[in-house]
């Protein structure tokens, strides 16, 4: 601690203050670690000891949690921590060159802290700014629309040690980029409208409306929302103080997805109304939002909103003046872990643990947050629930298709004229979306992120709906000039980086396939690696613990089927020998021509099988 100039006593004082602000609650460990790091720039070993003691937790448990999340650091880091968003869409916009440029300008090596401890530059998984990239994070703050000029200026600001607060506000501007509005994005309901409507209906009737609406989860899995709500409502809590929870999954980590960012920015009232409606309907008095760390910049306005709702009786003990109807919402921040988007990993993280997906069953609706019945819904799902409270289930069911009612927000990025958010009724064709966003020469669209599916031109007539192409909303568009092998390689590394490491197949398999892809990229690949990828895919698909591992090889599988030449042209050999004897095949001609010169023979040495 000496070199940081923080003495043990001051460290104690600082950390105990943080722990106290969180009521000494071990369940808030992740939030405590975040704040401790904000104060100390990293988490030295001594700090973990102090926090563990103050919370009454084993120290190893605290270190285990701190070591899990990408944005928590156990070793010293730069005072300016620059992380370039490394999604393929950022790369297509030149993020790689910009990263090199910044490193050169700062005389540093990527991934290493500068000798004076001033700065470090590295990459991070998609930061959710694909519509206005390339993007990066500086000390957790999102910067958008990077250009060479802007990068040079950022280099200067860092060298001059200008505090982030004094950087040009324009750098931090995040636009909504809403391009097409349907029922959700054009709604203008006042805060509390949906909640009042639900209370007026009554919980049972509200549940009936949800059933009628046939709303399905917007986070990707598409589970029917009313079944979740009803199961949680029917489930009895455990322990001395049985209760229920509503959890909003705002851990929007799927690369290429940014719709929840927009909803959290401009439709937070609708979201909080949706959460309150869910709470009222299932009989929960507490709601939690799990907000991905990359969106931490939204926290102040969200907290302000919550406070406003408390002031106006939309949160608290007697909602809308109804005694006995209590609901409040708190926000937890993540710390850089894609896997926490999986609902049970999210619950673990909310409880201050490593974000490792739980064994199911039991499902969260019976044993969720702190073992109590819990509804976990996506941001968009909850916003839709708010609309259903106001307009009714039948109205909602009249939109979209039979099995996919309502509308869907799509996050469109990549090679298009107008990247941003597009809301359509379910059933819209991919071709329609591509026309609307100005994707002139698309050769492929990655739907629903790397864990979704890659569609090629012959599939553009397919429709977004659970009946056809299910989607969590991401549409990354790749023009004809893009190298689909590099797209897949980017995704392979994404999964290797984000695997939680719990189960063997995903932990090791994601690293192995990333290695295969690198080998092919470096010109050392052969058919052998392609076969390996297929074999590992077959294993991960069925034996992984959660959806992350199960989907981890999907982008490789998809691109190998649709863009195989992009792989093959990199292979050193296809490692194939003909089934017939080449020399023997010339025998008849030799006899006829009377030739016996060298060119009249194949004198092959045995086929080399060198890797």
């Amino acid at each position, binding site marked *: 601690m000496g070199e940081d100039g923080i003495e043990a006593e001051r460290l104690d004082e600082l950390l105990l203050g943080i722990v106290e602000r969180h009521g000494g609650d071990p369940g808030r460990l992740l939030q405590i670690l975040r704040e401790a790091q904000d104060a100390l720039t990293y988490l030295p*070993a*001594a700090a*973990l*000891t102090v926090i563990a003691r103050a919370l009454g937790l*084993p*120290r*190893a*448990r605290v*270190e*285990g949690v*701190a*070591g*899990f*999340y*990408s944005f928590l650091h156990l070793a010293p880091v730069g005072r300016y921590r620059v992380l370039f968003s490394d999604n393929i869409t950022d790369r297509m916009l030149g993020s790689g060159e910009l990263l090199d440029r910044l490193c050169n300008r700062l005389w540093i090596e990527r991934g290493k802290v500068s000798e004076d401890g001033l700065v470090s530059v590295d990459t991070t998984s998609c930061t959710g700014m694909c519509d206005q990239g390339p993007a990066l994070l500086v000390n957790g703050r999102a910067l958008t629309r990077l250009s060479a000029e802007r990068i040079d200026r950022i280099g200067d600001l860092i060298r001059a040690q200008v505090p982030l607060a004094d950087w040009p506000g324009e750098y931090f501007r995040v636009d909504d980029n809403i391009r097409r509005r349907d029922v959700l994005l054009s709604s203008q309901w006042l805060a509390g409208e949906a909640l009042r409507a639900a209370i007026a209906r009554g919980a049972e009737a509200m549940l009936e409306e949800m059933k009628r609406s046939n709303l399905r989860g917007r986070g990707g899995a598409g589970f029917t929302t009313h079944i979740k709500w009803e199961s949680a409502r029917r489930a009895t809590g455990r322990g001395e103080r049985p209760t229920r929870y509503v959890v909003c999954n705002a851990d929007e980590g799927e690369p290429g997805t940014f719709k929840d960012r927009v909803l959290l920015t401009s439709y937070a009232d609708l979201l909080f109304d949706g959460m309150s409606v869910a709470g009222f309907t299932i009989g929960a008095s507490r709601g939690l939002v799990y907000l991905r760390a990359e969106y931490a910049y939204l926290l102040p306005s969200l907290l302000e909103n919550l406070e406003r709702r408390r002031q106006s009786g939309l949160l608290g003990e007697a909602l809308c003046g109804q005694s006995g109807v209590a609901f409040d919402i708190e926000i937890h921040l993540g710390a850089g*872990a894609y896997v926490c988007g999986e609902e049970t990993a999210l619950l673990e993280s909310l409880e201050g643990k*490593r974000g490792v997906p739980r*064994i199911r*069953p039991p499902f969260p609706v019976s044993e969720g947050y702190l073992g109590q019945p819990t509804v976990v819904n996506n941001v968009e799902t909850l916003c839709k629930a708010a609309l259903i409270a106001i307009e009714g289930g039948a109205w909602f069911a009249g939109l979209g298709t039979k099995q996919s009612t309502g509308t869907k927000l799509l996050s469109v990025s990549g090679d298009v004229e107008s990247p941003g958010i597009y809301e359509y009724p379910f059933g819209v064709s991919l071709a329609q979306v591509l026309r609307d966003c100005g994707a002139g020469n698309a050769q492929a669209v990655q739907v629903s992120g790397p864990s979704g599916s890659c569609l090629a031109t012959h599939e553009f007539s397919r429709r977004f709906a659970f009946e056809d192409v299910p989607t969590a909303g991401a549409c990354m568009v790749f023009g004809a000039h893009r190298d689909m092998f590099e797209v897949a390689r980017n995704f392979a590394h994404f999964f*290797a*980086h*984000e*695997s*939680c*490491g*719990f*189960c*063997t*197949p995903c*932990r*090791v*398999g*994601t*690293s*192995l396939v990333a*290695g295969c892809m690198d080998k092919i990229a470096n010109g050392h690949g052969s058919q052998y690696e392609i076969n390996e990828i297929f*074999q*590992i895919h077959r*294993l991960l698909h*069925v*034996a*992984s*613990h959660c959806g992350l591992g199960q989907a981890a090889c999907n982008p490789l599988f998809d691109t190998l089927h649709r863009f195989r030449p992009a792989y093959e042209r990199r292979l050193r050999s296809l490692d194939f020998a003909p089934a017939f004897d080449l020399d023997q095949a010339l025998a008849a001609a030799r006899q006829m021509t009377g030739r016996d010169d060298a060119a009249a023979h194949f004198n092959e040495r045995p086929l080399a099988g060198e890797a």
Partner: protein
Amino acid sequence: MKTILLDGLPLPFADGQTIMEAATEAGIFIPHLCHHPEFKPQGSCKLCTVKANGRYVSACTLPAKDGMEVENNSPDLNDKRRTLLQMLFVEGNHFCPSCEKSGNCMLQALAYELEMLTPHFEQFYPDRPVDASHPEVLLDFNRCILCELCVRASRDVDGKNVFALSGRGIRKHLIVNAESGRLADTDFSLADKAAQVCPVGVILQKRKGFAIPIGRRRYDVEPIAMQVECAPSRTSGEQES
């Protein structure tokens, strides 16, 4: 009596029992590494992957259901299990000839059982320094397969929390409960349950390694599949004698 059909064989089970428990009670072997009959199942190694009613599941965590048809000893499943073993072998540094657990090691015994002749993949060769700080026990992290048995034993039986996992993904690793990171600075003791449960050669009692010569050890004598253990389990071959 409720039953499952395991590879066509009807096995009775009690409510709440997992597929693994039902099989074990009937003396049928389902390969496993992170499972131990005395501890809460965790389902992370995936060696016990079986096909139940057509779906791939972990036998150690999935509750048995009446009439469930389970495929266990099939070429497809053993193939997948062999690949999982190969993944575990290349991710760590498993040099059996220099390991004093050889012959008593479950990872090795399963590799024999499933006829794994090669690690197949490229070796990761991670750098994992050993911890020899404790007077009685050596920790050789090179062989850790992250089964968390020591974590569970220390937490649930010893009430000590000596072990935990840190890191994520391929960088996940075992840590001990001390600011120094050294086992000697924890309250670990040789008498702990956690000292007895390591299925591989990470937690090793010092000065005892070759009390039983190689060639006469537990899995040298009899293949692992012939040694199905019910709770309470036998401990390793060395403690038996």
